[in-house]
């Protein structure tokens, strides 16, 4: 090997190392940002995180501000949203995977769901405003917000449930049918129990998404300053993210810390939801696997 060749190999190796370093940094970048973000939020928010913060209503004074109505508003909306979206989403997935014939119409439904998954969330807000708030005269209520959110997360639930249902071994379905069961009996007896961990994981992810959304609810008409809590689904509301948004845009700097405290609560709930999903999944999987 002459000198030139050695030189070339060296330069190729060098390129490789530089590239390796570069893309490693790209990957680590996310970690750094996440760490920075958490540090920033914890530093600002933790000192403000008191029991009072959880039980107080918003106030003009940062020290007296609390997240109570937002917390309850989010809770209301999440429960209603889940109650609406879960059965419809799982039902649609069952329909598409087990009942629908393979034809143009079914293709169209599938394509349509894929497209809906890519529609910006704020557009769902406009749908909610035009249809639920106005046309169906639900007003700017918890109910209108929940319907809007349910439609927003429906594609996510459908798609993840479809995947879970598709993972059910066809041998199990056949075994069930061969024992003289109807389709629905096979769905409830074999398919759903087997697919449940996957369905639940997908649903919890979808609900987490809804929990963090603010844009569609602003369009639907969530309030930013609320001094009451919703008692019925037809009451007006605010939510956790909207409270955070509102505090972030206050001129008084201390409100940023209040917002950070709100974010800690929000992220805490999301963390809890996702850990539940993981635990659920693992627990069921051990049971199913041998």
């Amino acid at each position, binding site marked *: 090997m002459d000198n030139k060749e050695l030189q070339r190999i060296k330069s*190729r190796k060098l*390129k*490789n190392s530089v*590239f*390796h370093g*570069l*893309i490693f*940094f*790209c*990957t680590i*970048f*996310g*970690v750094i940002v*996440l760490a920075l973000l958490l540090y*920033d*939020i914890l530093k600002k928010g933790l000192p403000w995180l008191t029991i009072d913060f959880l039980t107080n209503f918003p106030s003009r004074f940062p020290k007296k501000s609390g997240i109570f109505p937002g917390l309850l508003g989010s809770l209301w909306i999440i429960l209603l949203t889940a109650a609406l979206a879960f059965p*419809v989403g799982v*039902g*649609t997935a069952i*329909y598409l995977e087990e*009942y629908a014939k393979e034809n143009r119409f079914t293709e*169209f*439904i599938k394509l*349509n769901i894929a*497209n*809906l998954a*890519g*529609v*910006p*969330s*704020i*557009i769902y807000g*406009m*749908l909610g*405003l*035009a*249809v639920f708030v*106005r046309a169906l005269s639900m007003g700017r209520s918890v109910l209108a917000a929940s319907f809007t959110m349910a439609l927003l997360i429906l594609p996510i639930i*459908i798609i993840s449930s479809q995947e879970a249902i598709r993972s059910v071994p066809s041998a199990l379905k056949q075994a069930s049918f061969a024992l003289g069961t*109807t*389709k629905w009996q096979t769905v409830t007896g074999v398919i759903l129990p087997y697919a449940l961990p996957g369905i639940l994981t997908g649903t919890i*992810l979808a609900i*987490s998404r809804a*929990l*963090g959304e*603010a*844009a569609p609810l*602003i*369009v639907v*008409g969530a309030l*930013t300053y609320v001094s009451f809590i919703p008692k019925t689904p037809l009451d007006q509301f605010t939510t956790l*993210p909207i409270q*955070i*948004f509102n505090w*972030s*845009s206050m001129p008084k700097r201390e409100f*940023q810390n209040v917002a*950070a405290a709100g974010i800690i609560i929000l992220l805490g709930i*999301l963390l809890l939801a*996702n850990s539940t999903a993981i635990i659920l999944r693992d627990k069921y999987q051990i049971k199913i696997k041998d």
Partner: protein
Amino acid sequence: MKKIDFKSKSGMQRNEKIVSSVLFLFGIISIFTTFGIVFSLFEETVLFFKEVSILDFLTGKEWTPLFEPARFGVLPLVFGTFLIVIFSSIISLPIGLGSAIYLSEYAPKKARKILKPILEILAGVPSIVYGYFALTTITPIIKSIFPDASVYNALSAGIAVGIMTIPMVSSLSEDAMMAVPNSLRQGAYGLGSTKFEVATKIVIPAAFSSIMASFILAISRAIGETMIVAMAAGSTPKMTLNPLESIQTMTGYIVQISLGDVPYGSIGYKTIFAVGTLLFTITFILNIISRTIVRKFRRVY
């Protein structure tokens, strides 16, 4: 064994019919949703275009719908959105692609096991949190470098949107690269190629169409992103390419109007639907393009 008496199946058959009709109804809810979106957007948009010509809307360079004299040129909002797309893409596309290459080609198993969940967490952080991060961390950094940057500026929001879309680019691109069969790589390694050469000359070309599709999806996400821009980019519709100025995006405008008390039926109310229609159309087309690319160029190995 004793003989067992079975109930007749006729009741079950009736249930079966009911169940399958109910499931069918669930199945078509998604179609109603799409029609709902299209109709609710178009209804008000049509009313809007009775008052404002489409041409003025699409080509006008001033957007002052609520002041006198009211101007309805949407270009400033489109420009604002465009700025966000540019700066978010500068962050998300290379970094997302880079981390996809690292995770699929370079990373040891252990590193993957730690890094992938972190990217998933990053993807699960609500956009409102990124908005806060832009406002309270990114903007001060920008201001310390460019002291005359405005408090609300496109750069800060763009960076935050970029960070938010990194996981999307990364995971979709990585999936595509993982799907490239190992035999292709083995051949190149056999000829003495470095990992860098295998990644850039074999894997990326083989996964190219899916990588492009992930880029387009990320851009579509950036266009539709709302809370970050509403919090950090400002609310000044402006035709500028200076990222340090306060701007307004299409989504930002919709939020601004929704927060105020715009009466139903007023021109202000209609403008958000016109802007929404434009937003929906653009993201819809991008999503279709992305899907078509994936479908058309799907390689059969």
